[in-house]
């Protein structure tokens, strides 16, 4: 079965600290992986995506993610968190040619302490 698991429902970090949000997936075909962010009352915005090539991908707002096929993971990282990063983060998986049909994880809510 195709699925995405985000093990951490809620994470709290101090401003300036590093961040890692975990994502594990189960997908039969070659996966295309995405991280989206959703601020309160806002739509989802794409942070970054991985289709192929370099397994470390850079995104907007200083985020990066690393694809590890052997671990079926696509963890999101940021070296120094800003208060404005407080939001909900969703990992998603899809297939090329059918990327509109994304399977999302349940999300991780990030709280940033001053």
């Amino acid at each position, binding site marked *: 079965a195709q699925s*995405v698991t985000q093990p951490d*429902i809620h994470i709290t970090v101090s401003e300036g600290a590093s961040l890692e949000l975990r994502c594990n997936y189960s997908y039969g075909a070659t996966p*295309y992986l*995405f991280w*989206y962010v959703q601020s309160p*009352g*806002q*739509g*989802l*915005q*794409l942070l970054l*995506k991985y*289709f192929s090539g370099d397994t470390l991908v850079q995104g907007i707002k200083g985020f990066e993610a690393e694809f590890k096929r052997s671990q079926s993971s696509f963890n999101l990282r940021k070296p120094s968190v800003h208060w404005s990063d407080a939001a909900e983060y*969703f990992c*998603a998986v*899809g297939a*090329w040619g059918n*990327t*509109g*049909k*994304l399977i*999302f*994880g*349940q*999300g991780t809510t990030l709280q940033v302490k001053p």
Partner: protein
Amino acid sequence: EAGVVQSPRYKIIEKKQPVAFWCNPISGHNTLYWYLQNLGQGPELLIRYENEEAVDDSQLPKDRFSAERLKGVDSTLKIQPAELGDSAVYLCASSPGGGRDTGELFFGEGSRLTVL
């Protein structure tokens, strides 16, 4: 450039009443999606349109849900009759389609439905 526009942003109705949500995608985007987001969950695809054709509606509960995109631009999602379990956020998204996709979906702000 205007983003994906959805209305209404919030809707409160009694159970068994009908409700409709409207979405206007980014200009020039041929592909339109309706996603359902339950509280504390990630979005789930309900239906995907390529122009005016519904190419994937396998997750749409057809007994009470319907959708249309008559002219291949804006779209309406309807629920009739609404049930308590339909309380959720209904997200619309669009992408260029027609071989121009980069994998990114552009989401609207969503329509939050509360069924009492």
